[in-house]
């Protein structure tokens, strides 16, 4: 079982489309309980694919996935995974499909076998905890972009997952909404992997950052996101300080 706190263990995962370089190439990733990991990488580097493989939405071509200490392979294995790992999609319009907010948030709990009243109560509590009290009867497609993102997060949290996979939760949001997402994430008692291109956002929300390229994730435990204002030509990317190379002058 997951006695060392190891909850997601990917070994040599490969995935690709015919006649194109592989999206994931023998990727290894270990993710432990309590961890908050950021994930950066260029567009098309397979970050979303990685999330979908963990959730069993697409099938990897080779490799081994162990989640919560169990080897998962078939659709039925992934069903129990989906109860314990929540995925926040990039596009909130994909996530919110029910007519009203309350119904959408209650959808997950109902699928988990809760009664109508329990599901409603959970939905109300989750919405309130995200500062969305009073949104229950709003029509999902009439929400603003920021509201949609927050409600999407509520739909995932209502399932009471142990781990979150967040696919660019801050993209396209104004500063206020981004700030409230940061506050929410910091206040959660959950482990998560968070994809973002925004280093400032990662600094606020994660313990360390992995970088995805060439179908692999490189996790350097010493690459801790931090912020201090200065300028140099590598400022745009995740980078390390304090290790001198012959080219460095300072």
């Amino acid at each position, binding site marked *: 079982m997951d006695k060392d706190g190891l909850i997601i263990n990917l070994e040599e995962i490969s995935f690709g489309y015919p006649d194109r370089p592989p999206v994931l190439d023998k990727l290894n990733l270990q993710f432990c309980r309590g961890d908050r990991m950021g994930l950066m990488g260029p567009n098309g580097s397979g970050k979303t694919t990685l999330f*979908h493989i963990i*959730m069993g*939405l697409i099938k990897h071509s080779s490799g081994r996935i162990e989640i919560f200490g169990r080897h998962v392979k078939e659709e039925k294995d992934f*069903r129990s995974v*989906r*109860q314990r790992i*929540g*995925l926040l*999609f990039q*596009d909130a*319009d*994909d*996530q919110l*499909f*029910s*007519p*009203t907010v*309350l*119904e959408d948030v*209650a*959808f*997950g709990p*109902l*699928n*988990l076998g809760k009664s*109508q009243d329990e*599901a*409603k109560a959970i939905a109300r509590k989750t919405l309130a905890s995200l500062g969305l009290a009073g949104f229950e009867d709003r*029509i*999902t*497609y009439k929400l603003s972009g920021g509201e949609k993102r927050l409600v999407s997060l509520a*739909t*995932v949290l209502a*399932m009471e997952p142990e781990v979150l996979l967040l696919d660019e939760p801050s993209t396209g949001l104004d500063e206020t909404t981004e700030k409230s997402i940061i506050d929410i994430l910091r206040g959660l008692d959950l482990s998560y992997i968070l994809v973002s291109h925004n280093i400032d956002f990662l600094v606020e929300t994660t313990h360390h950052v992995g970088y995805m390229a060439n179908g692999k994730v490189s996790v350097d435990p010493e690459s801790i996101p931090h912020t201090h204002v200065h300028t140099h030509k590598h400022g745009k990317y995740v980078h390390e300080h304090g290790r001198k190379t012959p080219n460095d002058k300072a």
Partner: protein
Amino acid sequence: MIGNEVATGDSLIHSLDPRVKIVAVCLFSIVVAVSHRFVVLMSAMGLGLSIILLAGVPMRQLVRRLIPVNTFILLLWIFLPFSFEGEPLFSLGPLVGVREGVLYAARISIKSNAIVVVLIALVASTSILTLGHAMHELKAPKKIVHLFFFTCRYVDVIHREYVRLANAVKVRGFRPGTNMHTYKTLAYLVGMLLVRSSDRAQRVNNAMLCRGFRGNLYSLSTFSLKAADVASLILMLALMLALGVLEWTKMA
């Protein structure tokens, strides 16, 4: 959103239980569809008009919604009077209009208008979402209710995608004309819309799977029958019965 006028208002029709309304409209449609006598059809039309007046539907909206049905009926008036055999009524050159044909066309016109008027009263006085829930409560097949909900939810998203695509061709100077380039562009546009909708369907399905979807949608709304609902239902049943008797007595 396309075609979703807000169902606001506080008439008796608005406040009725949506299940009662659906049952009443279905009954009405069936009775009207199988009736032949003009007395019955005209009474039904009268009943339909009183319902829609009671619901307070604005005249303009009513007329606008009746136009499509009647355009189709106009076509029937062009063909039906000439495609029957019987007592000649009038002639247009070599064509002879026949009494039976005219009566047949008149019946269809009254029937369809009566049914559509009542349907308009239903849609204009009930929000689309409530309708879906009421269908669910009435034990309509699950797939139809799902289809209904997803159409409501995504027609707007797909419309926005269409507008985005249409703007994308506009800003690059596209002006539709009668030429191959136009047809090709429009075909690309429609094709792209289909592909995007199908991709979106896939993503929505994924999102639902992630939240434990196993083929069941649950409704959170509950309806309760009030005295006014029961009374209206009984009144409607009685009226339908009366129309039925009126129709049936012609045989005797």
